[in-house]
């Protein structure tokens, strides 16, 4: 009941555990060694000497989300391309290179359409919203 397969995954767990151990160890050491003199001024968020107004957890511009959106679509497409890419050479050696190439390129062409659409609509421009707001100001 000990498949040797899983022993190969051991390093992953060991490294993660080492990271946690190192983190807690370093934290513990700093608790032991570091001075503890808390004061109100010290634990105020740093804003170059100004007294902070309001919380930083406020609303952000929606372009961050649009970037994340384009990212996740490309991410998922690359996930689907990985297994096909890893057998591409094998298929080519089996004489099915043309078939694999057609499948692969048609998959990528849809990907290219997505990026072309976002490019044309200006979702890839970071400063677009500024231009919109200046137009409004002129009006």
């Amino acid at each position, binding site marked *: 009941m000990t498949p040797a397969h899983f022993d190969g995954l051991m390093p992953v767990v060991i490294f993660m555990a080492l990271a946690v151990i190192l983190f807690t160890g370093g934290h513990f050491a700093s608790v032991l060694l570091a001075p503890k003199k808390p004061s109100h001024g010290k634990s105020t968020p740093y804003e170059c000497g100004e007294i902070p107004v309001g919380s930083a957890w406020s609303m952000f511009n929606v372009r961050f989300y649009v970037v994340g*959106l384009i990212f996740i679509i490309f991410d*998922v497409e690359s996930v689907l391309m990985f297994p096909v890419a890893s057998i591409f050479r094998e298929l080519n050696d089996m004489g099915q290179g043309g078939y694999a190439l057609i499948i692969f390129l048609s998959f990528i062409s849809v990907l290219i359409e997505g990026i072309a659409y976002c490019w044309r609509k200006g979702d890839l421009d970071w400063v677009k919203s500024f231009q919109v707001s200046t137009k409004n100001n002129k009006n």
Partner: protein
Amino acid sequence: MMGLASYLLISLILFVAGLVVMIARKNIVAILLGIELILNASALNFVAYSRYVTNNLDGHIFSLFIIVVAAAEAAVGLAIVIRFFQIKETVHVDEATQLRN
């Protein structure tokens, strides 16, 4: 310990947790979290069945596409949430009473 039943039990817990989140929460983002949990429960079931029952990889393909669809669903769902917030200034699900705008 590692049998089909334990995987099904875990996926049952995931499903119930997702369902409870969907029912009890009023924040739309939290409801999307619940949907992710439910989708994960079903994907886990597919892989567990493909290991213990059918012993081929069709279950893996299924859960792969579940993950793909989950990503698309999250992208569109969160976009709707953000648009909803821009209009209504809230993410409370009871405020979503209109189909247009």
